[in-house]
Every structure is written in structure tokens, then in C-alpha cells.
């Protein structure tokens, strides 16, 4: 039997075609996708997919961590088609079906980050390497968020940040694998500045007490810029250690500093303690420069407001979200969470829940857990129905751009949960900003070959 040698054989044609395709660098997408699908970190091959919850269950932000855990558990239930479905019913556009993620049942593992960056990083490593977590989420401190998203970038695992408010998280320390739904200190300054000017005037002298880590520094910088733009003078900025119980030695110098506003760049227990002690020093009853002395807490939550008790009454600040908003997303989430746990959700719980659903939805839209595809699905994604109005996951820095709330401690609460009033909902267009101002590089999307 002889073979015809005329012209190009089928085998030669295939070889030449493949060589040409590879040489021009335009290999068909389906080939690379199939190849990577077997190789990326913790690709879920069974019938479950594991998420890693990195939660501050002890330390200065422990109460936020406990509330985040409740929200994650609720999100997992809803993703698996259990419970009332929560925000799955109102989130648009949504690809979630209530049958897990890509048909795999959602499971989770947890680690106590102790509100410490190095512990958070070690916990995330353990959940990735030992427990096979395909995504890491959680945290209530920007120091944790920055540390963990750096790790996740190295290991090729997506990090959906919990509560983190430092400009650095999606600024100079931003990472391709890190995504933040929570707002930031710069946006707090944009939202809060005009309200402070309206309430307290333009002739003020401010004294800052600032938690001594990334979040405190950037919040101090942002609020200082916003108030100085109003015409306020910054008398002094003092750094205080994270987790200090007694702030009295930092408060006594305020008394004779000539300042008539104290700005507390503290969060969690630190804020509860510093505010309580500032009130005990009689600061709110003082008259300085012919004006009432005022205290401002640029970022606070309902959990902190409960901890500070009546000292929070009348204090201005900003929040990412509040449970008594009346949009369908907020009503649905508050109903689900309240029915499950007997109390309304905090802003930490809300952002944790939303981040879980956004990740799951991105995987559904991408049709794969392969991180570069999920990242592409999240970048530039615009959605609604999550409680913050129309929201954009900005591609340039992975910062969610949405409305910001200016809140005030409720003077006349009607029940134990009624601790904050929403003074103003500052629109997304107002708090939007050029992502280039904070610098940073997102880095590559290609996953590490192994983890």
C-alpha cells in the first residue's frame, strides 16, 4: 500500500497550524483554560468548595469578627439554597441559583486572626495549604487586610476583604487578587467634611488622636485634608497604640491645647474607650474659643455605638451601611439576619455577606473557579440590590464605588438597637475619585503555579 505524497498531508496541516497559532501567541482560549483548570491553587474537584474565613474573634475588633462570622454562615446557607435566600432574591444582575457555587456545595473553614496582621497571614496560609480554601475572606483591620491580600497575591488565591477602611488597601498596597467592598478613609473625608462645616462652622481648631497603624494614618490624613479645606486648623496629631485601654494620658494634653474639636481616629474597643474617657474628662461640656467643644469619630459602627452607650449621642461619623435604610436589599438582609440571630446586622456583617455573594456570583458568571477569570468577572462589575444603591467594582483599584452614609449617635433611641441616625446618604458620584491619587500596582492576574 502506498500513500500519496502530493500536496500537504492532514498531519502536516495540523502541525503547521498549531505551530503558527503558538508562534503568533494567539492560542485558542479553550486550550489554556483547560490546562490551567487543573493547575491553579485549590481547584475544587469534588462536590464541595471550601471558603476560608479569617476572622478577628479576639482582640480589639473581636465583636466585629463575631458579627462577620454570623454573616458568612448566613451567606453560605443562602448560597446552598437554605433559609429565606436573603439578598439572592434582590441582587441584580445575579447568576446565583441557590445550588452552591457551580453546583458544588459551599463549605467553610475559620481561623481566629486575633486582630493581628501576622496571625491573620498565618491563618490564611493554613487555610489555603491545609484546608484547601479556594477563596479567603474576612478581617476587621486594614493591617490584616493588607497583609493577607499580599499573601493571596503570592499564592494565587482571591481575597475578598472584610471590614477595612485604610486608603492603602486599594491604594498603594492594592493587589490584583484583593477586592474591597467597604468604603475608605478618603471617602469618609469627602462625605463628612461638608456636614462638619455645616454643623460646626469653618473656624475650628482640631486635635487628632490616631490609632498607630495603616488605617489610623490614612484616616487622619484624609480627615485632616477635608477639615483643613473647610478652613479648620489642625492643632496636633497624636498617635496612640492599638489596643490601649486607658487613653487618659493622651486626653489630658487636649484640655489646654486650644483645640475646640477632638477627632478620634479610633475604631472598635479603642474608640469605645477613648470616647468614654473623653466624655468623662468633661470635653463635651467645655467651652473653648467661645464655642462648644465637639468630638468627631470619622468611622463608627452600631456595635461601637452600643459599646460607648450614651456617650455616642450626637457624635458625627460615617458608615458603609446601616440596617435601618429602607431599600429592598437592606430590608431583606436585616430580615434574614434578625430572624437568624435576634439582632440587626452590623456594617461589618453586611460587607462580609455581600463579599461572599459577589465572589460566588463572579464564579458563576465566569463558569470556573480559575482566579484570572473570576477576577475579570469582578473587575468593572456593576450591580444593585445589596443595600448601597448602584455599585461599581472599579477595575483600576478593586474598590467598590457606592454611596457613603454620614451618621450621628441617636439622641433619643427607642430601643437597644436604635443607636444611630443616618444624617445623609452621600451619592456615589460625590465620593468617586481618581484611583491614581493613591498610586500602587495591582500586579499580575496569572496564578502562582502551586500553593
Amino acid at each position, binding site marked *: 500500500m502506498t500513500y500519496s505524497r502530493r500536496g500537504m498531508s492532514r498531519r502536516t496541516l495540523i502541525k503547521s497550524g498549531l505551530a503558527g497559532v503558538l508562534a503568533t501567541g494567539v492560542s485558542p482560549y479553550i486550550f489554556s483554560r483547560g490546562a490551567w483548570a487543573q493547575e491553579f491553587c485549590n481547584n475544587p474537584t469534588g462536590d464541595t468548595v471550601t471558603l476560608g474565613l479569617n476572622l478577628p474573634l479576639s482582640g480589639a475588633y473581636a465583636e466585629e469578627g463575631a458579627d462577620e462570622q454570623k454573616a458568612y454562615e448566613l451567606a453560605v446557607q443562602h448560597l446552598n439554597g437554605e433559609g429565606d435566600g436573603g439578598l439572592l432574591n434582590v441582587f441584580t444582575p445575579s447568576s446565583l441559583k441557590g445550588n452552591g457555587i457551580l453546583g458544588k456545595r459551599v463549605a467553610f473553614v475559620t481561623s481566629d486572626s486575633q486582630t493581628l496582621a501576622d496571625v491573620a497571614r498565618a491563618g490564611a496560609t493554613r487555610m489555603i495549604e491545609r484546608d484547601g480554601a479556594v477563596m479567603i475572606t474576612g478581617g476587621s483591620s486594614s493591617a490584616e487586610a493588607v497583609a493577607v491580600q499580599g499573601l493571596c497575591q503570592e499564592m494565587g488565591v482571591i481575597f475578598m476583604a472584610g471590614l477595612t477602611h485604610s486608603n492603602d488597601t486599594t491604594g498603594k498596597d492594592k493587589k490584583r487578587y484583593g477586592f474591597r467592598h467597604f468604603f475608605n478613609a478618603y471617602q469618609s473625608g469627602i462625605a463628612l467634611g461638608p456636614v462638619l462645616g455645616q454643623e460646626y462652622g469653618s473656624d475650628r481648631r482640631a486635635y487628632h488622636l490616631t490609632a498607630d497603624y495603616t488605617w489610623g494614618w490614612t484616616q487622619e490624613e484624609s480627615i485632616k485634608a477635608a477639615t483643613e479645606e473647610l478652613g479648620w486648623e489642625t492643632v496636633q496629631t497624636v498617635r496612640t497604640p492599638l489596643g490601649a485601654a486607658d487613653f487618659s494620658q493622651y486626653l489630658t494634653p487636649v484640655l489646654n491645647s486650644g483645640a475646640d474639636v477632638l477627632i478620634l481616629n479610633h475604631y472598635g474597643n479603642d474608640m469605645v474607650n477613648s470616647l468614654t474617657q473623653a466624655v468623662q474628662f*468633661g470635653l463635651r461640656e467645655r467651652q473653648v474659643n467661645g464655642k462648644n467643644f465637639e468630638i468627631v469619630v470619622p468611622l463608627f459602627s452600631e456595635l461601637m455605638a452600643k459599646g460607648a452607650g450614651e456617650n455616642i449621642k450626637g457624635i458625627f461619623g460615617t458608615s458603609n451601611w446601616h440596617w435601618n435604610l429602607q431599600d429592598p436589599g437592606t430590608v431583606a438582609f436585616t430580615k434574614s439576619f434578625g430572624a437568624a440571630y435576634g439582632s440587626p446586622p452590623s456594617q461589618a456583617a453586611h460587607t462580609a455577606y455581600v463579599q461572599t455573594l459577589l465572589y460566588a456570583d463572579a464564579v458563576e458568571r465566569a463558569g470556573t473557579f480559575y482566579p484570572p477569570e473570576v477576577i475579570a468577572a469582578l473587575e468593572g462589575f456593576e450591580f444593585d440590590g445589596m443595600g448601597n444603591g448602584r455599585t461599581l467594582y472599579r477595575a483600576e483599584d478593586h474598590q467598590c464605588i457606592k454611596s457613603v452614609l454620614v451618621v450621628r449617635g441617636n439622641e433619643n433611641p427607642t430601643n437597644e438597637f436604635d443607636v444611630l441616625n443616618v444624617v445623609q446618604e452621600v451619592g456615589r458620584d460625590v465620593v468617586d475619585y481618581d484611583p491614581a491619587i493613591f498610586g500602587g500596582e495591582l500586579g499580575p492576574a496569572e496564578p502562582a503555579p502551586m500553593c
Partner: protein
Amino acid sequence: MFEVILLQFLNGLDKGGAYALIALGLTLVFGTLGVVNFAHGALFMLGAFCAVVFRQLITLETVTIDPDQLSPWGAPLEVHEPLVQAWFGDFGAVLVNYSVPLSLLLTVPVMLVIGIAMERGIIKHFYKRPHAEQILVTFGLAIVAQEIIKAIFGANPIPQPMPVDLRGAADIGALIGLTPHAVSYPIWRLVYFLFSVAIIGAVFAFLRFTTFGMVVRAGMADRETVGLLGINIDRRFTIMFGIAAIVAGMAGVMYTPIVPPNYQLGMNFLVLSFVVVVVGGMGSLPGAVLAGFLLGILQSFASMTQVKALVPGIDQIIIYLVAVVVLLVRPRGLLGRRGMMEA
């Protein structure tokens, strides 16, 4: 400038009061039983939670369900009515108002029982073990106590309001002829300072002027000889452990209006208090008190803006810096005795 210095001095006194009270209890335990008790901060925290429990008891409410009102998540709203006021009227309101100082009545027996149980149940088995093992077991006890409190009360601080009459700041400046409001200091912190002085005085008087105290002091000086005289010194030392627990607990109770207690309250003080004990001299009660006030005052002055402008960050390290200097100059601490923790 004088006003600023006076304010920092007052601040140092009230900080020093807390340090001295905790260090006093630590020294009582170390001086009598020879145990380095890392659970002492936990006793401070447990005392603070006695105030929390007492307030929860006297603010008990009847809860009725109002089907006409709904919570934000659609459940029928609970209506709360305070029970003590319903029973005792105005007297009930006074009890609630003074819940923090009144909770000392609950704290004393509770802390005595906790202290004795801790000593008899666990610590006595470690008397003859090395100090490292004593530290490990007492530190373990502290963590267990923390986790129990966290499981029961949660991680969030629980504010304890001070009595209405003692809120706000006292105008110390006006009292001594300075500009009004130039030196204002929280009334409760002044109360805390006076309270710490009173408790320290009471402990010293107890040891100095009672037969029990005399025997304990003799036992601290020479345990063996006191034992040979037929006195059961171990029983007295156990009671001293209970008394040290009471002192720590009472210090914790009165501290709750200053820092809302949570499960970590004791840990915030523990390391500082050990530095105070070492600076004062291991086993020296007057040394613990002296070093407590000294370090409190120095820490406060180191936080002044003018001082921090000269040496940035000095407020964070001043206590440890002083400890290094004192130990270099006087290796046994300010008032330390020969033979304490020395081979």
C-alpha cells in the same frame, strides 16, 4: 504650663493607683506563697465582671411580647419593664444608680471564693515546681478565665455607668486659685485614686496591726520557724491568696466606669504590673506601691506633647526604660529584699 504639669500629675496618680493595687496583690501572693501569679490580671478582670453581673441582676426586667409592634426583622417586639424599680420605687433607682460601688458587696465574697479555690485547686500543686512552670500554669488559668468570660458575655466591652452625682469633671484649678476650667479632672478618677489609697492603707494596717497580719509577716520572713511554732501558716497563706484576689477584684470593679470591661481587661495590666513589681522589688509591699505610683506618674509625663516632641515615642517605652535603669542601678529593685528569687 503649670496647669499642664498638674493635670499630668493627677493623671499619673490615678494610673499609679491602678498599677499599685494590682502590683500589691501580686506581691502579696509572691511574698507569702512564692508563686509568680500570671493569673492576677484575670482576677482584676473577674472583679470587673462582678460589677457587670451585679448590674445585670439589679436591672432585671420583665419581658412581655407586644404582638402589635414588630421588630425590623418582623418578629413581635419585646417590651421591657425594670423589676427593681417596680419593687422598691425610688430606692430601686438609687440601687441602680450606685450599682458599681454597691457591687463591691458581691465582689468581696465571690473573689475570696475564687482566690481560695484557685489556690487550693491548682496553684498549691506547683509550690515546689520551678517558677517557669508556675508562670505557665497561672498564665493558662488566665486564658481559661478569659475564654469563659468571653463565652458568657461576648467580646464587646460592657459599659458600666458611674453614679450620676460622680459624673463629669471637677474644676481643680478653680479650687486652688488657677483659671477656671484650666485643670479639670474626672471626678470618678479622683474617687478611684482615693479608693486605691484607702485599700492600700487597709491592707498595710491589716498586716501591721492584726495578729493574723503579724503571723503572715512572720511567715513571709521565715516560714519554717513559724511552722515550727505550731502555727498552720499554709492556711493563713491560702487566706492571703484570697485577700489578694479580693484586692484585685475590687480594683477591677471600681475601674469599670473608666474602661468598659471586656474579657481582655486583665491582660492590659498584667505585663505593666509585673514591671511595677520588679521595679519596686520582688516581695516588697511598700516597693510595689511606690513603683506603681512612680511609673504611673512617669508614664503620664512622657505622654506630654512637649516631651514627645523631644523624644518621639517615649510614652511607649518609658516604663521599660525606667525598669532597665532601676535594675542596672539597684538589681533588687527600689525596695527589694536580699534572697528573693536569688539562688
